[in-house]
């Protein structure tokens, strides 16, 4: 094997990172292609180009993983390649069962990559099972067929440059009785990629391009002539109409007549073997690890869902160079400001200028600096943004796998895939969304028979949609399944000791639904008795909360369930409200601040040993942060209430002073303070002061649902005044 492959020995970590990034991209692309194949299959079609794309992806993965010493991946790719080769060479047909195997491979690839990066165990047993299944599927070559190629008036030299696959496509086209066309076209080398794409697009409806042969001597270095061999059912006139360009010549490749002077029937292989003998070969043509020994069929179990993660191993963001150019320009502007400040400080030191003039100049520079800094921030944020489609594509694979595993028919509808969010959030988001989707298909969407019985369309619908709302991204996961029965939820929660019967009686409908996010809650007794496997919704909620997001749930019995996740667009820079409590500064993320008002002592009430303030006729629970944090309360006459909103819950924080808004870079509190709840981090304010950043979601949780009193909290308006 590629022992000591350059990934370690010669190239170092950077080259290896490049490998992870590219491998992950290939695996993601592979997943997308498989979904497209699956879709085509449902419509009774097989897309040969797509099959070839899949083959090429696996082929590249095999080469790469072997090069970088990831032997498990190379071995799996080797076996997959056999099967895919059979597929593209027409020895096997695309079936749903075969696609199952390929989808399993995609999932295993991701886990192998993660394991290589030191995240999790390598799924050895599952790889073995898949290798076995693949081994039983692949057909060994049965020899090439003649295919009647020799009847065509083709340049013998052509066969010298066809890969085995291209030759197969040529033979198979001829066997299907398709016509062959030769398209000669001249392109400018500078624009050939896009020009060729256009040509391909206009040719695609009429047939398949077999190969491209660059011709010409290379004397003219700016343009290139391509000879394209294409097979299709169209007539040459139709094709000429479709590919209308001034520099194109299209002709049909004629069949030879019997009296043709060329010796007909000479196989292509022979033509090639007359050429010069190999000068040198080193390395083995195929030294991938031997396939697993063929054993009697074993029932392959699917990867345990709970162990699976959709997170990609690559932390790379690919950036349009123009975005970086813009950033570079801003850096240039900042450098100019810096020079001006230097000059100014020299003048100030020399006392050469009027202080007032200096102050004005400084103010001007400050504004300019602010503007460029804001642009810089915006630019860097833009670079971090990736479309949610990246994670939606992976989820589509999961939907397919789960629905097939459970024998349920589910139609996935995705909208807003181009909504952008921070790359780091996307990575952390995939697993929680996967669990929600698993729950929806497993527990919510009914089987075909049941759906027909209750008068629903036989195929269930799962809708994933995303949109941006201010500084947030809202993601909805909605199903048209059975919905959640509040009585069932309450019964289950009581049985599991999450609430007492008495507590349950006081819960609002919304609080009842929120019970499904409690640790230890399981829907096993509520909805179906399916697997009961997988991660609870409490983990989903915790993970989303770690990203500064909130989860809301709405459900109607018999109609469906919608889970809404609201997330900040980025974690890197946040806009905060700076407040002062007992002489200390704290930052409240503005995203969760609804409004700030003056504290009106006359509107305060105590309800169930909790302070509540009446604001515009509704009661608002309030929290005195100085008490909560154990700080000496200040006795200033005037205090303020910062009203925070998390999902649909509101809480007022009493503060001494409102300092103002600020964009801050949030920093982690470090290892020793990791366990402290209520703070999202800290930030430096530039004047050597430090402010703690409140974790509003955690505080709201802590204050409104502390310990055993959870869900017994305050009810809107009903009990206030």
């Amino acid at each position, binding site marked *: 094997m590629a022992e000591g492959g350059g990934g370690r020995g*010669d190239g170092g970590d950077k080259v290896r990172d490049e490998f992870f990034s590219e*491998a992950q991209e290939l695996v993601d692309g592979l997943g997308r292609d498989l979904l497209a194949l699956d879709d085509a299959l449902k419509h009774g079609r097989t897309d040969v180009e797509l099959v070839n794309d899949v083959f090429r992806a696996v082929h590249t993965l095999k080469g790469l993983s072997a090069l970088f010493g990831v032997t498990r991946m190379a071995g799996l790719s080797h076996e997959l390649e056999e099967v895919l080769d059979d597929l593209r060479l027409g020895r096997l047909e695309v079936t749903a069962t075969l696609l199952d195997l390929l989808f399993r491979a995609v999932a295993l690839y991701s886990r192998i990559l993660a394991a290589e990066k030191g995240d999790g165990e390598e799924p050895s047993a599952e790889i073995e099972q898949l290798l076995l299944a693949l081994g039983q599927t692949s057909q060994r070559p049965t020899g090439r067929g003649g295919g009647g190629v020799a009847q065509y008036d083709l340049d013998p030299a052509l066969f010298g*440059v*066809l890969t085995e696959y291209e030759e197969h496509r040529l033979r198979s086209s001829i066997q299907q009785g398709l016509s062959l066309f030769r398209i000669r076209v001249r392109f400018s080398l500078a624009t050939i*990629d896009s020009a060729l794409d256009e040509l391909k697009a206009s040719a695609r409806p009429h047939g398949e391009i077999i190969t491209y042969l660059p011709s010409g001597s290379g004397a003219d270095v700016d343009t290139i002539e391509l000879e394209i061999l294409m097979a299709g059912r169209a007539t040459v006139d139709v094709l000429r109409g479709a590919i209308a360009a001034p520099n194109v010549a299209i002709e049909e490749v004629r069949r030879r007549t019997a009296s043709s002077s060329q010796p007909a029937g000479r196989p292509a*292989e022979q033509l090639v073997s007359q050429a010069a003998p190999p000068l040198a*070969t*080193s390395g083995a043509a195929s*030294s991938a690890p031997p396939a697993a020994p063929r054993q009697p069929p074993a029932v392959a179990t699917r990867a345990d869902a709970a162990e699976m993660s959709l997170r990609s191993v690559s932390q790379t963001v690919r950036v349009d160079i123009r975005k970086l150019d813009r950033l570079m320009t801003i850096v240039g502007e900042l450098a100019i400001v810096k020079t001006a400040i230097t000059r100014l400080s020299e003048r100030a030191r020399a006392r050469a200028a009027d202080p007032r003039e200096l102050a004005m100049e400084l103010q001007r520079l400050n504004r300019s600096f602010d503007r460029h800094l804001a642009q810089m921030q915006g630019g860097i944020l833009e670079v971090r943004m990736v479309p949610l489609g990246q994670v939606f594509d992976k989820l589509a694979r999961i939907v397919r796998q789960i629905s097939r595993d459970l024998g349920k028919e589910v139609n996935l509808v995705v909208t807003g895939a181009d909504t952008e969010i921070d790359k780091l959030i996307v990575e952390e988001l995939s697993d929680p969304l996967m669990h929600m989707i698993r729950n929806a298909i497993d527990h919510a969407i009914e089987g075909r028979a049941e759906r027909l019985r209750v008068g629903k369309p036989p195929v269930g619908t799962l809708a994933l949609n995303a949109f941006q709302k201010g500084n947030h991204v809202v993601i909805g996961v909605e199903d048209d399944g059975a919905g959640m029965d509040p009585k069932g939820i309450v019964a289950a929660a009581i049985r599991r000791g999450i609430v007492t019967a008495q507590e349950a009686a006081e819960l609002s409908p919304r609080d009842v639904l929120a019970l499904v996010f409690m640790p230890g809650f399981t829907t096993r007794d509520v909805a179906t008795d399916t697997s009961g496997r997988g991660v609870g919704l409490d983990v989903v909620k915790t993970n989303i909360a770690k990203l500064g997001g909130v989860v809301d749930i709405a459900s109607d019995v018999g109609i469906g369930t919608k889970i809404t996740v609201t997330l900040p667009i980025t974690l890197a820079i946040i806009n905060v409200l700076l407040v002062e409590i007992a002489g200390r500064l704290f930052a409240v993320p503005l995203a969760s601040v609804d409004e700030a008002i003056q504290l009106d002592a006359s509107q305060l009430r105590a309800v169930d040993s909790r302070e509540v303030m009446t604001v515009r006729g509704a009661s608002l629970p309030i929290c005195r942060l100085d008490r909560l944090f154990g700080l000496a309360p200040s006795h200033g006459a005037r205090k303020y209430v910062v009203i925070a909103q998390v999902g649909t819950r509101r809480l007022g924080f009493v503060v001494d002073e409102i300092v103002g808004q600020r964009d801050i870079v949030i920093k982690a509190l470090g290892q020793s303070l990791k366990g402290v709840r209520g703070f999202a981090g800290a930030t430096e304010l530039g004047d050597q002061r430090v402010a703690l950043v409140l974790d509003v979601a955690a505080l709201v949780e802590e204050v409104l649902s502390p310990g055993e009193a959870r869900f017994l909290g305050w009810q809107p308006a009903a009990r206030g005044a």
Partner: protein
Amino acid sequence: MRRVLVVEDSVSARAFVRAVLEAPEFAARHGGVTVLEASCGFDAMRLLPRGPYDLIVTDINMADINGLELIHFIRKSAHHATTPLVIISSLRGEQDVDRGIALGANAYLGKPFTAEQLRETCERLLGESPPSGLAARPGEPAKSGSGS
């Protein structure tokens, strides 16, 4: 100074080859090595007129123009008719390798190959041919161990 053109659609495979050829010890033996990367056949065609090259390393299985077609094209051009050329490919079909050799490739390295194998092959091909002349300067230190 030796100039090498690497044609390969995988970015990390290109990085691998570059790392091997630009490794200080190897590069020093050849008076320095400059690697030019092409990510597809068209890229390669755009870079070919910027030759001459002392060595061309190419993959076979690429979109649009495959490696065989590229070799065919390269060998037809007067400038590159004799430039040493290595195929790096994991195509299992021996037919493709045979065709590549028939078209004028000088060596074939099956993927996966080790850094050592790649180094040896390139060492041999570079050692067998004189520098392309573009960058050879009079005052350059004598090469040591070329062709070893």
